[in-house]
């Protein structure tokens, strides 16, 4: 098991290098240079050139790339933002807690609501309850986030006046963005759990369990659910990782400084150190989360656990 985790951690190195190279290349290929974007169209060419030189942007692509990687690997330094000329890590640390809280709250709520209602829907297949849940899930999966956000804001902030319409920092301000993000994910999870459960209960071992006289409760919770959860946990892991990249729509509508708006703004301003720093930071997190999900499999499914303990080799 430890060996497996160690190996996976080592695999992260080439992945991160690949991500770094790819993002750096794409950013360098986009039009415009940081100097003229910051100083604008009326600036003198010599000022623009001087600013670009200050950023080291006048150097060739490969030199810039290797300098950057060198700073990151040798000094753990993500560099300074072109816009603010302050360390990138400050920008990330100012926004990541907001995004992390939003993700944690909305994804936990989404998994509780999505998975439990999904199970319920599957157990009660073809009943009025099931059909209602499926339709409601479809509606929430299709509603655009910005619209849902605005409607929530109009209701809770303007009509009822009980929640702030924007901001960050307080739990109260997090409620509306969390609901916005949660509803879409919950709807997706409900649909996924439902279909996974339906597939599992048709398996022969369920019939065997039933023939043995196991109670419905035991069949659902012990036999069916653990198997059905595998695809759900996978989706949950990847979407948790992805939402750490920021919920751009919720962040914009509710004026919440998060990772999503940080990265999009930086891309538009060609603030390469910020985009690189944030992307690498998220890539590390994402890789770790995927690793945790893979380890979780072992606890859900004994077959996989056996495989890991064998150092990944198949038993002959």
């Amino acid at each position, binding site marked *: 098991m430890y060996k497996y985790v160690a190996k996976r951690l080592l695999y992260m190195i080439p992945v991160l290098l690949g991500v770094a190279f790819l993002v750096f290349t794409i950013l360098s290929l*986009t*039009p415009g240079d940081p100097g003229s974007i910051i100083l604008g169209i*009326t600036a003198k060419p010599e000022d623009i050139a001087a600013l670009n030189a200050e950023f080291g942007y006048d150097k060739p692509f490969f030199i810039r790339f290797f300098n950057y990687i060198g700073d990151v690997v040798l000094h753990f330094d993500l560099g300074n933002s072109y816009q603010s*000329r302050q360390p990138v890590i400050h920008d990330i640390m100012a926004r990541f807690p907001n995004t992390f809280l939003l993700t944690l709250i909305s994804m936990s709520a989404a998994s509780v609501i999505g998975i*439990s209602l999904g199970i319920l829907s599957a157990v009660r297949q073809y009943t009025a309850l099931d059909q209602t849940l499926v339709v409601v899930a479809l509606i929430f999966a299709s509603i655009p986030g910005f619209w849902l956000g605005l409607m929530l804001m109009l209701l809770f*902030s*303007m009509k009822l006046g009980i929640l702030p319409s924007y901001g960050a920092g307080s739990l*109260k301000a997090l409620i509306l963005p969390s609901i916005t993000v949660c509803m879409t994910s919950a709807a997706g999870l409900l649909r996924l759990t439902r279909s996974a459960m339906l597939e599992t209960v048709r398996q022969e071992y369920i019939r065997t369990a039933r023939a043995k006289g196991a109670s419905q409760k035991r069949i659902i919770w012990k036999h069916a659910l653990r198997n059905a959860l595998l695809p759900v946990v996978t989706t949950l892991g990847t979407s948790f990782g992805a939402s750490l990249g920021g919920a751009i729509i919720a962040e914009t509508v509710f004026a919440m400084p998060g990772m999503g*708006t940080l990265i999009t703004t930086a891309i538009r301003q060609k603030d390469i150190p910020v985009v690189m720093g944030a992307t690498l930071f998220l890539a590390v997190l994402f890789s770790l989360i995927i690793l945790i999900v893979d380890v979780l499999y072992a606890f859900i499914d004994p077959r996989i656990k056996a495989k890991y303990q064998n150092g990944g080799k198949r038993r002959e």
Partner: protein
Amino acid sequence: MKKKTVMLLAAVLAAALVGCGGSGGQSQGQSGGGSGTGEDAGADSAGKDSITIATDVDVDTLHPSDFSTTVEHTILSQIYDPLMFMNPDGAHDPEPRIAEDYEISEDGMDYTFKLRDDVTFHDGMALTSADVKFSLELYMASEYQGAQVIGLESVETPDDTTVICHLDAPYSPFLLGVCQVSIASKAYYEKSEDDFVNQPVGSGPYKYVGREKGSKVTLEAYDGYYRGEAAIKNVTFEVIPDQSTTAVALKTGEIDFATIESSTIAQLSGDDAIQVEEVGNSGFTYVSMNTEKAPFDDVKVRQAINYAVNRENVVAVCYDDEAEVNSNICSKDRFGYSEDQPQYTYDPEQAKKLLKEAGITTPYDLGTILVAEKYSNIATVIQNDLKAVGLDVTIDVKEFNAYIDDLTSGNYDITALEMTLDGDSQQLEMAFTTDYIGTANNARYSDEEMDSLFSQARTEADTDARAEIFDQILTKAQDEAIYAVLCNPLTLYAHNSGLDCQEFPYEGIYSIYNFSWK
């Protein structure tokens, strides 16, 4: 069994509701709005001494000279005071601030400022001529704001309250430029360069309290301010990127003041608690034609396009009527403008006639109108107007930075955009003179007479003679139809009607010192 699943469902819902309610209850009183907002929404503002202002973007820096955005400029100008305050409309005399008086030498080479002796920085240190010299030199070395002190060669400080600026050549717009310089503390800079940027200390009406990256900047009235302490004690700038959210927050009273877009007015109308103000601006919307390319090298074609566009329609469709129709690059309140300079009005027949004279047989393919995405609606209106006189254009929309690349390198036929050449009217040289081809002279217009007129305006110290030169420049620009200027979009503010904002200066860097609650 059935009962159990229903119970489970109920439990889940209950948990979700309790979760929301619980966390809401715990943090009551510290709403996202921050300083005491929420309860006192609307015009009921008795006893209020704080203000929350929405900005659409965050500040990247609060460096007194190395900043680039309007929001940064706005916040900095509450913290830092200038030597003198000058409303850039050309009609006002400079008002004393840190300097109580100024004098310009006969030859226009030396500007002497006499400083007040009672000005202190927020850290209590007295402001002296050494700080002014330091700040001016900071601007001279700045790639960001160096343009404000063009022509400044050296600064002399014979005593603590006298500053003499020596110019390398007479430069009439110098006074307006130097009045934009934020005066910062030399001692504070020498103590810590990091704090100088991150914990700015100025001598303005408000001192810096704190900042949350991406979300807010807080200021507090400085009790030692030499003009008397400000009426509004606490100021919070909150970043709200979305205009719909800004409108909601204005209505709920979470924010008191915001710069808004014309499309947001509809959301705010009918609410007596909110007042919308329109302030003139020298920024202009225009069609630029690449005069290096045929047929735009022909003055008749450019004039025809000027007659072909329906400016009233552009203002109605693209600006919800919140712009002033003007075919002159110089806005009406700006130095050098005169009603006698030629104006272009909508006249498709005249346009057709001019095209005929230019030897163009319609329908004629004029090529591509290149625009950045945010100006694509303007391009659509122009496309229709041109079609009506027999000129066909196709619209090509590009990402903003890619667009600017093409625009400045002359890789386009015709385009529409907004531009700000604020400050002294001398700045208009960026649109017309040979030196600025490749930056803001998008028409790529080059003419010796025009270049020479702008150099004369640069050194002419006499106001009337200078106005005469600008009259020649602007008349020439209109006669030759170098651009097809459409309108001057207004700056729009929405604020709680309990707030008294006095007069807004032209160009819209407002001073919160002038605000008070009724």
